[in-house]
């Protein structure tokens, strides 16, 4: 794995973080947030910042820092989370997304100056900044400003105080100033490690070693506190040292060594200083403040001043001597809900696999399914029937296939999650505020379908807001609420996934649509069209009803492109529109593009596959179940419901099908739009799984054919596109190539 690969991992992670943060902010917007929600948002932004720094995306890092600082204040309740602030944060999140995209694609970062100003103002206006990370850090790391290079847009957060000694050697002028005031005199470092420095894997010897690495020499070692051997406690610090470190090393390099020493070591810097007193007995826990104080001292040019120990000591005895427990309990309490939240947010998470690998696995499983079918066929040809092992194999392969497909399945929520941003952008540009309602976000479908779904859905939503939903004034005048509502609904139905995008806007203005179509020459004046047909005109290529081309939906790509996309997915799009009430677009898509169950039928000597998802039942009709209709149609009476009979022989271009429905088998299928139909076939030979091979890639697309598949015997069979076929047949007055015999009957 090289750095680029790692960086890609980071960007994938960014997506997750952004989604988590967005979900959190949406929860806030709905007013249902709690501490965990804020934590989750914070964590999302925080983790992007971490990576941004690590991979050197300075603008991204600067922006996340600013964002995070405000979030930290929100988390600490220093800033109140007003609806306005939530909007600002959402806005910032969108900008963050752009930042991430820019970083990934190596583009120039977006202009965030305005937002940064707003974020900073929001923080300041609310009296934030108290106890924020950024501020605490500045007091914690007095050296930060000195280190800050001219190119650093961050306020020093990316500086690693503990490790800056390396850079310090490089000697930037500013940091050297303090030391140079002392001319060439060495820096006098007086230190005394205390007991705490020897626990937690620490070792004062390592500090001494580092001072030596800086060129330091021991000027004095104070052994006066070393006790008699009997009283000697190996875990207590009895020794103190004075070091002389060459001034070139820089004072901050010295303090950096002790950055994390805390109460483990007393440190004083300055020529006139002495080695601090040891803390023996009950006073062993020394003041944390002392090292901080000494660090500050160091900053003020090593001014000689002994920190007042007594106060600090009393305070810290509490903190340290009642070890950790009292101080840690609240910490543990805080951590617990945070962990829960984290666990929740990780529920949908798993390991990352290269999609290509997964596809190869699925391909392999598909081939396995076919091989198994071939084996079954061979065995039955050799009269091996009721083979127990084969049944077992069949079950196992079926399980395996289902599981493999389940890996690819993703909840449609991943597409839905992108919608709030689209709506926000639309709200900004159109002034129409739209409430989003999601139903069935957890409905699963194949990842490929999901990926290809995003674009048409976004387009439909833009269209709904731009053309469907009215302005607030119009809505109020029509007696509706000022804000529009957009419903996104997903559900499994009949082996497909059906997605409904419904707005409560003004509905399609059919007069305008018809007039427009007339103008475009898509229809003629005297044409009589049903409402549905008029609605469907908006899918005609080159159609656009917007009076003026807006920058939202009128981008030159029309609804025809949307329909094309959906068609490519093997899906269909329909419209339901009620004037004044709203419009719904309904997408019906296959769950997967890979494997299906099918019924293999024989028609005029050919094998055809009817997807099982469509099949309701099959039967051999009796003569009294068949009724004629008009001159050329027959209906099947199934339990007092009449279903049109369609001979498939016509479909395969042969007249040699069964002369009468009673001679063959009727397969009753359910279609999306045209109700039920009874397909007349010679016989049903098998029912098995099949892998859809696209005809487009191997031959060319044919109306009514969904694809082809290879049967167990190696023969190619066409898969019937039931929806299309029935729809075509129902809308044309004459059955396609209706066999003469049927007409005669």
């Amino acid at each position, binding site marked *: 794995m090289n750095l680029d690969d790692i960086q890609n991992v980071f960007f994938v992670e960014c997506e997750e973080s952004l989604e988590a943060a967005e979900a959190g902010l949406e929860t806030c917007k709905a007013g249902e947030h709690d501490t965990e929600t804020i934590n989750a948002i914070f964590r999302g932004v925080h983790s992007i910042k971490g990576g941004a720094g690590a991979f050197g995306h300075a603008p991204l890092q600067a922006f996340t820092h600013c964002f995070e600082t405000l979030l930290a204040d929100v988390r600490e309740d220093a800033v109140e989370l007003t609806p306005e602030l939530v909007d600002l944060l959402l806005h910032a999140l969108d900008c963050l997304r752009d930042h991430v995209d820019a970083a990934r694609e190596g583009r120039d970062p977006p202009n965030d100056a305005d937002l940064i100003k707003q974020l900073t103002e929001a923080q300041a206006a609310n009296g934030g900044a108290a106890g924020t990370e950024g501020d605490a850090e500045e007091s914690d790391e007095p050296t930060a400003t000195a280190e800050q290079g001219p190119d650093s847009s961050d306020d020093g957060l990316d500086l690693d105080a503990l490790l800056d000694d390396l850079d310090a050697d490089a000697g930037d002028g500013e940091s050297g100033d303090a030391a140079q005031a002392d001319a060439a005199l060495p820096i006098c470092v007086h230190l005394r490690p205390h007991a705490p420095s020897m626990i937690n894997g620490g070792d004062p010897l390592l500090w001494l070693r580092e001072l030596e690495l800086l060129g330091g020499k021991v000027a004095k070692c104070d052994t006066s506190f070393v006790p008699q051997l009997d009283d000697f406690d190996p875990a207590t610090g009895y020794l103190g040292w004075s070091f002389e470190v060459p001034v070139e090393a820089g004072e901050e390099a010295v303090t950096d060594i002790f950055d994390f020493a805390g109460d483990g070591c007393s440190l004083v810097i300055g020529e006139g200083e002495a080695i601090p007193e040891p803390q023996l007995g009950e006073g062993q826990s020394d003041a944390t403040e002392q090292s901080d104080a000494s660090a500050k001292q160091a900053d003020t040019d090593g001014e000689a001043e002994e920190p007042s120990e007594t106060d600090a000591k009393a305070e810290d005895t509490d903190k340290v001597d009642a070890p950790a427990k009292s101080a840690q309990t609240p910490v543990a309490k805080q951590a617990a809900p945070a962990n829960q939240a984290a666990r929740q947010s990780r529920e949908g998470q798993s390991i*990352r696999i290269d999609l290509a690998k997964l596809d190869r696995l699925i391909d392999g499983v598909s081939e396995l399914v076919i091989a198994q079918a071939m084996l079954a066929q061979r065995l039955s040809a050799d009269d091996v029937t009721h083979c127990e092992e084969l049944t077992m194999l069949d079950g196992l392969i079926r399980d395996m296939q289902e599981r493999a497909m389940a890996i690819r399945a993703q909840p449609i929520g991943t597409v839905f999650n992108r919608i709030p941003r689209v709506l926000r952008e639309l709200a900004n540009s159109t002034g129409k505020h739209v409430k989003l309602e999601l139903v069935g976000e957890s409905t699963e479908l194949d990842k490929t379908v999901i990926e290809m779904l995003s674009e048409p859905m976004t387009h439909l939503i833009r269209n709904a807001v731009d053309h469907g939903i009215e302005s607030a004034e119009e809505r109020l005048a029509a007696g509706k609420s000022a804000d529009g509502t957009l419903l996104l609904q997903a559900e499994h139905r009949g082996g497909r996934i059906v997605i409904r995008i419904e707005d409560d806007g003004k509905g399609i203005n059919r007069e305008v649509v018809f007039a427009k179509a007339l103008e475009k020459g898509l229809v003629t004046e005297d044409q009589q069209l049903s409402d549905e047909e008029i609605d469907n005109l908006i899918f005609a290529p080159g159609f656009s009803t917007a009076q003026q081309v807006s920058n939202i939906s009128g981008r030159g790509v029309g609804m025809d492109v949307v329909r094309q996309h959906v068609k490519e997915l093997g899906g269909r799009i329909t419209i339901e529109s009620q004037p004044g009430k709203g419009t719904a677009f309904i997408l019906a898509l296959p769950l997967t593009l890979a494997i299906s169950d099918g019924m293999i039928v024989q028609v005029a000597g050919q094998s055809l596959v009817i997807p099982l998802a469509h099949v309701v039942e099959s039967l051999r009709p009796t003569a009294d179940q068949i009724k004629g209709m008009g001159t050329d149609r027959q209906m099947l009476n199934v339990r007092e419901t009449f279903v049109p009979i369609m001979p498939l022989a016509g479909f395969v271009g042969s007249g040699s099908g069964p002369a009468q429905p009673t001679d063959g088998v009727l397969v009753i299928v359910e279609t999306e739009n045209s109700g039920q139909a009874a397909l007349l076939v010679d016989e049903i030979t098998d029912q098995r799984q099949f892998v859809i091979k696209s005809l487009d890639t191997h031959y060319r697309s044919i109306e009514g054919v969904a694809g082809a598949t290879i049967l167990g015997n190696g023969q190619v069979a066409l898969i019937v596109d039931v929806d299309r076929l029935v729809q075509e047949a129902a809308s044309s007055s004459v059955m396609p190539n209706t066999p003469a015999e049927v007409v005669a009957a």
Partner: protein
Amino acid sequence: MSRNIRILTVDDSPSMRALLRHSLTEQGFEVEQAEDGEIALSWLASNEVDLVITDINMPNLDGFGLIEELRSSARHAERPILVLSTESSTEKKQRARNAGATGWIVKPFDAEKLAVAVRRVIH
């Protein structure tokens, strides 16, 4: 000197793990990784390392919790533990000290600085 020094890094971010592995391996350290405190604990129950580098903000068991757990067992009482975090507040550092951390590194890091920090605490 860096030969055979074995480090466990604990971080929930895959990119950070990858980066740590890359940086530390490049510096000649042997690297083991865990995704959160709980995984780190169970791994450490049956494995030995010279040093643990842990993130703070993690699901399941965070860095503070991990350090406390480790320090409560005699086996890990003396093990150097470095905190690697983007946070750098005094309060957080104090909390880490109380929990028993040996040192604190502020992200981002570069490979060399990290190596210096590691050698600073390896006995």
